[in-house]
């Protein structure tokens, strides 16, 4: 699915990713943990093509294609989805219109027919129901006046509709209560299949209780300093990062 080799990236003249090597096989969920400022969010942005980061070295192969050569919209069409840590507000853009525009853009890229407003609403209502989202969230402007939890759920709704092959969840659990956390985890679990993988960026073990990862990686200072099974997340929850960091130093 995803093969990252020696990836380095910077913003301005500040180097943030300093050689990431990471392979996520088909059908696996990998968690990325690590202290603030270690480069976790940057990794998500670089994979989805945000322009303010400069890739200075390394390669990213996604299902056999050179991901870094693609525009953000082409990456999305290829199946990459980033759930934003701080979802962007779009005043004046109706959420249903936004979701339909995105879904139809992806469908068009796949040579599928576009959905009209009625067809779309039918599809969307199935997902909003599953995510326990009130119907009026489709009518409101994108993320405007949404609570933190509503914004995160709206990201998961987008993921559910766009059906990516690789979902990168950037602290989608932060600011969620236990119930919302479970809904988000269920949303991801519903997509789990041999052709779906996820990179889950998180600070906390609790999301991983519901969304059990195949592998856990610890990112520090722009490098993966340790990888392990789900038990690594539990160990970090107990001991914090200090031990791992000292070990790696």
């Amino acid at each position: 699915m995803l093969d990252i080799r020696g990836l380095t990236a910077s913003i301005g003249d500040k180097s943030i990713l300093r050689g990431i090597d990471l392979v996520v096989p088909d059908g696996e969920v990998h968690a990325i943990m690590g202290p603030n400022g270690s480069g976790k969010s940057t990794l998500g942005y670089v994979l989805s093509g945000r322009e303010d980061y400069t890739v200075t070295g390394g390669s990213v192969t996604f299902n056999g294609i050179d991901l870094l050569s693609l525009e953000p919209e082409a990456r999305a069409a290829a199946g990459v989805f980033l759930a934003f840590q701080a979802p962007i507000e779009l005043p004046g853009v109706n959420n249903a219109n936004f979701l339909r525009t995105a879904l139809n853009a992806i469908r068009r890229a796949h040579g599928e027919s576009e959905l009209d407003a009625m067809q779309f609403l039918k599809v969307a209502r199935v997902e909003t129901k599953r995510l326990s989202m009130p119907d009026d969230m489709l009518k409101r402007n994108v993320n405007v006046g949404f609570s933190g939890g509503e914004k995160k759920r709206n990201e998961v709704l987008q993921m559910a509709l766009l059906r990516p092959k690789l979902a990168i969840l950037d602290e989608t659990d932060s600011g969620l209560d236990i119930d919302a956390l479970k809904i988000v985890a269920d949303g991801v679990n519903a997509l789990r299949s041999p052709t779906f993988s996820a990179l889950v960026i998180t600070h906390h073990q609790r999301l991983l209780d519901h969304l059990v990862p195949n592998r856990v990686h610890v990112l520090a200072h722009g490098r993966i300093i340790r990888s392990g099974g789900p038990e690594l997340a539990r160990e970090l929850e107990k001991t914090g990062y200090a031990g791992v960091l000292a070990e790696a130093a």
Partner: protein
Amino acid sequence: MSAISTMGAAGFLARFEALRDSLPGCAAERAAAAESFRALGLPGGTSGRRSEAWKYTSLRPLAEADFAGSTADTVHGDGADLVFVDGVFRPDLSTTVPGFTQFAEAPAFGPLPRPDRDPLVALNTMLAADGAVLRVPAGVNAGIVRLGSIGTGASAFHPRHMIHLEQGASLILLETATGNGAYLHNPVTEITVAEGAHLTHIRLQDEATDAFHLATIYAEVAEGGTYDGFSLILGGRVTRTEIHAVLNGKSATAHMNGAQLLTGTQHADFTSVVRHAEPNGTSRQTVKNVLNGRSRGVFQGRIEVARHAQKTDGYQMNQALLLSPDAEIDSKPELEIFADDVKCSHGATVGELDAEQLFYLRSRGVPDSEARALLVRAFLAEALDLVTDEAIRAILEQRVDAWWERQAA
């Protein structure tokens, strides 16, 4: 015809001398207007007087243009009820509209326009040959009337429109201005809205690329009446939309909203003045500019509140979205408030498309140009949503989409 005599202020004055005996209406008013025009000149022209009202807009290109004549025989009506070609009513292209008469047949200059102050109004008063006079009787809902202007060739025309809504009457007036050529369209529209009457005045200015469009509108609103104006400005080379509204009765309302979408080297000036003369009035001036290429937008907005116009509620907002580093906006808000118990606010913003919003959309698979279109539409939504009639708003949105497609092409 010598080249000099058709150009600039002198050209218009020469035209007046040639036509003065054949023009309809009061000869003395026209002669007085001609004297004013001679004294004021064209703003920005060589003999033009400098004035604060024309601080950001120069009519030098107009002064240097040659208006040799029309090519009116080649036009087709565009679905309007009342069609004017080069400022002249065309019954053959129009339908019957109750309460309509031609200005040429019933020429009268009303009390609102100020030819002594406004050079373009002086020019209009001097040379107005025709126009639409529309009267909606008390209590009548006249529905939608479409008033279309088509400009051709190198014509210069100065239509004089009068719209009168009697007590409790209502009307949606949809004005469209289109054409083909390097013409001057210089309309003056005089509007009176009587007690409890409601005029929705939608103006769709989509003139030819080389055309000049200089419109002046005067609206007087009586107690409980509403003037609800919205202008969508798309076309023309140098254009100005100047609106003067006076709230002359209690609890009257004036909306002078609009959107200007400009590209290339277009220059568009939106100038609006609202005078709250009586208490409990409401006014809104929400004007959005989307500026591409090397275009220049101008907004001048003024709210005047008389001493006893207490409980006035005035709001003014001018926003510009610059799609190009070479585009420019000049914004001049003015408040002149003599009453002490009023709610008046104004604001102005200038910005570019938000990079984070653009990335968010693209990361969802929306192609760059489509994402930009969506954000431009979102920026305009706050203004377009002020057009409450859904069918009319749909017409305007369609024009906005077409404009965007031309930019993206």
